[in-house]
């Protein structure tokens, strides 16, 4: 059996904003079903890399190849980014309706997606009535409702407290098990990167390049007590060291 073609490829891409916040040259292959974490200091271009993968931005130089079609890529932003005037179910139904699914069916699937993220009964709530963690779950439901092949998460937990963070990390793994999308996860938290991903890419300060790459050799979703295991601690140490080295270089 030959390896499947990668789902998204960045080949020697460079993004030049005319300042210090740029990217590259940077290359990245995303295979279907894998979870990759991009970790690096603020301004290293990790969010830019994510926007390139989403097709929301074009590189200054280099090539981006995307196998996922319209509606097959989802993005979760740092903030919940919900429409404040719309109920949770309408927020979740939006991607379906924009891609032409009839309203009734879109709302039905949206209600089901809200149930996956354990928000059954919050369908009618407006974003202002939700807590930060709940709003982020709505955002996650909106990303998953289209059954994406590529799920891009841009520091989705940055604004949340530790307890909510951990619950959401487990949720993302649980949901990943169901449909196995490829996940790219941007973060500046080492423990989060190691917990979430099977592959951790460390980036240098802007313009960001690949500093090193580490595999996390443990089953997904993570077994109970994974955060206290020797493997987890060691990998976190490795990634931290690589990150420190990248910052110093």
């Amino acid at each position, binding site marked *: 059996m030959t390896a499947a073609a990668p789902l998204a490829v960045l080949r020697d891409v460079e993004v030049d904003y005319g300042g210090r916040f740029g990217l590259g040259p940077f290359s990245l292959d995303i295979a279907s079903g894998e979870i990759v974490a991009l970790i690096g200091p603020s301004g290293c271009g990790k969010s830019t890399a994510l926007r390139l993968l*989403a097709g929301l931005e074009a590189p200054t130089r280099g090539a981006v190849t995307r196998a996922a079609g*319209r509606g097959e890529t989802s993005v979760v932003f740092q903030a919940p980014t919900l429409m404040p005037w719309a109920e949770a179910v309408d927020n979740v139904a939006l991607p379906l309706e*924009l891609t032409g699914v009839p309203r009734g069916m879109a709302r039905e699937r949206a209600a089901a997606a809200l149930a996956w993220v354990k928000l059954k009964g919050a369908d009618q709530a407006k974003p202002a*009535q939700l807590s930060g963690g709940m709003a982020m779950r709505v955002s996650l439901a909106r990303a998953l409702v289209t059954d994406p092949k590529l799920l891009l998460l841009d520091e989705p937990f940055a604004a949340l407290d530790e307890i909510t963070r951990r619950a959401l990390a487990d949720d993302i793994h649980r949901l990943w098990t169901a449909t196995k999308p490829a996940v790219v996860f941007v973060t500046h938290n080492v423990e989060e990167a190691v917990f979430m991903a099977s592959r951790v890419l460390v980036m240098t300060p802007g313009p960001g390049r690949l500093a090193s790459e580490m595999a996390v050799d443990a089953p997904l979703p993570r077994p109970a007590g994974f955060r206290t295991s020797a493997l987890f601690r060691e990998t976190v140490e490795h990634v931290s060291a690589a990150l420190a080295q990248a910052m110093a270089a």
Partner: protein
Amino acid sequence: MSRLTAPILFIALLLAVWQITVKALHVPAYLLPAPSDIVLALSQNLGVLTASALTTLQMALWALIAASLTACAIAVLLALSPLAECSVRPVAVALQVTPIVAIAPLVNIWAGLDHPHRAVVGLAAVVAFFPIFSGALTGLKAADPDLERLFDLYGASRLQRLARLRLPSAVPYLLEGHKVAAGLAVIGAVVAEFVSGSGGSQGLAWRLLEAANRLQTAKMFAALLILGLIGVAAHAVFQAIEGLVLKRWRGR
């Protein structure tokens, strides 16, 4: 002392000082009438003043409706095309900085001397146009950039983006614009009526001019009082509408 009684007491104090001073110094009534004289003038002319007030209010309301429809329509068209926006903006600004008093004679000619109320509505609409227009333009561009990216991601059409993102995002700005415009429409109607200088429109401004020409100063104050009340009422009504709609818009 509560928030409500303090201003009432203050106003009562001002009126008392005014009344006593005017009576004690024997100030002539055509120069500064006492509050009691103003109340008397108000009660004597209540019928004609109320009728004029309703005329002014009606003209202001028509002006507000006309301004709202044209401002929103133009703003939406401009939002669909960035090129159109940079073409129209300088023209709009030029019109905005031209004093209404200066264009009034022109509008009078266009409306025809037989239809002074049309000129008044037109001029008041020009004044009320800008807060709504600039509110709409700002609001249509005020959507969360990440939400815009989300619409890009799912390949939304221009119309989908307008109907489902830009217009709903503009709601708070539109409400604010209409609130400001409501006050300006009343002011615009009064100024326009002054400038059109004809009794044909029979609004409050005409009553003011008429009373001034006859040195009926107490009646002028009575008309001013009503004008002030209209302004406050217009503001209060739109404030209430804004509160109600915003509460529904964001769900709390």
